């Protein structure tokens, strides 16, 4: 199992989309710039008009860790934590679901996993060619 995400006013759209199986990021309505992590105002054009955009869900592993001691709170086993550079150029921290150790440079694709409270978070799997 895994802990529920922490929802806030400015970020609820992301987690709500996950519950519908959609992987999205914040998009500024007037200037179309994508941002992650989300923020209340677009730092480029200073608009607070926000929407969101579905992403390809594909990216490359930039870095990885596994928290050994203390073990990851709320998990049965500490997961592989990965930093993914998405094809759209944004970065996100997530997990690689795998029995084998992540490798920097590996190509991964988004999927979703349930949390303890029945919510959903984006996780990644290796792309099998």
């Amino acid at each position, binding site marked *: 199992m*895994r*802990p*529920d*995400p*922490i929802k*806030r006013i400015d*970020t609820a759209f992301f987690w709500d989309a996950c519950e519908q199986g959609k992987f999205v990021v914040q998009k500024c309505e007037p200037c179309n710039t994508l941002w*992650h*992590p989300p923020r209340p105002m677009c*730092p480029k054009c200073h608009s607070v008009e926000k929407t969101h955009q579905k992403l390809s869900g594909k990216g490359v592993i*930039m*870095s*990885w*860790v*596994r*928290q*050994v*001691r*203390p073990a*990851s*709170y*709320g*998990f049965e086993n*500490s*997961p592989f*934590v990965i*930093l993914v550079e998405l094809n759209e150029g*944004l*970065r*996100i*921290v*997530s*997990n690689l679901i795998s029995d084998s*150790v992540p490798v*920097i440079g590996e190509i991964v694709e988004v999927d979703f996993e349930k*949390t303890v409270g029945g919510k959903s*978070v984006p*996780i990644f799997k290796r792309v099998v060619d």
Partner: protein
Amino acid sequence: MISSFQKACIVGIGQTEFSKASGRSEQQLAAEAILAACNDAGIDPASIDGMTTFSLDNSDEVDVMRSLGCEEIKYTTRLPQGGAASVSTIVHAKNAVESGICDTFLIFRAMNERSQYRFGQPHHSMSPDAHSSTFMEWCFPFGAQTPASWEALSCGPYLHKYGVTSEDLGRIAVTFRKAASTNPNAWFYEKPITIEDHQNSRWIVEPTLRLLDCCQESDGGVAIIITRADKAKDCKQTPVQILGAEYSMLFNHEIISDFYQGDLIRTENSEIVADRLAAAAGIAPKDTDVAMIYDNFTPQVLRQLEGFKYCGIGEANDYIKDGNLELDGKTPLSPNGGLMGEGYIHGMNNITEGVRQMRGTAANQIRNAKTAMLASGVAGAIIGV
């Protein structure tokens, strides 16, 4: 350009013992450290008229005043960014006294960081709104829940690119512990380690950080008193000048979960600070006599050596292998044993050690040390006599 009598000087340093269970309140630790710094300087605590600490410090200014009997505070600030704030406090102190706003400025940091709460444990009750970093909301649900995990994730690309091994990181830990072993104030006094000890220490975060790559968790308090040169001459100690003090927080960068901007190889904010410091102080960090470099985790030393331009990008590992950080090397590293060896008072005990080195009173005194670099990632200061 301000005249020489207006320049900021460190005139007092104070600290409690560094332990794992202080047995008293954080406010008392703060008060004891502040009183010690005032006595060291030969000033009355009542005359403190400005102060700064970390946004994370639990002792309120009003409570500090209540214990110390400060008559009036004209200016107070708090600094974000966790331990990276440690050297930023010097920037605020310098500005406060050189501008004339304050005459006697206090920096303090006190915490029961081992006995009361532990930075190394997941704090799942912490509000994501409580801090400016995104680490709670965007790391916690994925099992990256400790400073060690965020640090390791951010250092991964650098260590991978330059083939830095766990043994290489171990060499850094050995350097700190060697210095601590001959510093009676260090928690790890007379307890040096070998590379083998490092390699046998348990994993904290795979594949990067073993137990001996991490700083300690400590209880204790540290305080520093700053005034202008014209007033400093009436104090008990030889004034230590703040030749330059700078910090740089850059867009889209985070405190420790710093993943979202840049190539994760270079540390641009440190590079900017290094250039500004060299211009202000007339001496580059690499040409100073002592290198007090914030060591929450061993990879930080590599990145700051490059960020503050002690060597080129990707060269820090060789710079260390060549012995430059040894106590008899070109730029001796934290002769107190740093935060790994002496104690972790959120970086502040590295500043007091820098001052002792300038006074010539340190346990591991670097011979003829006239200048010291104080570094904490986003912030740097050069002090000298």
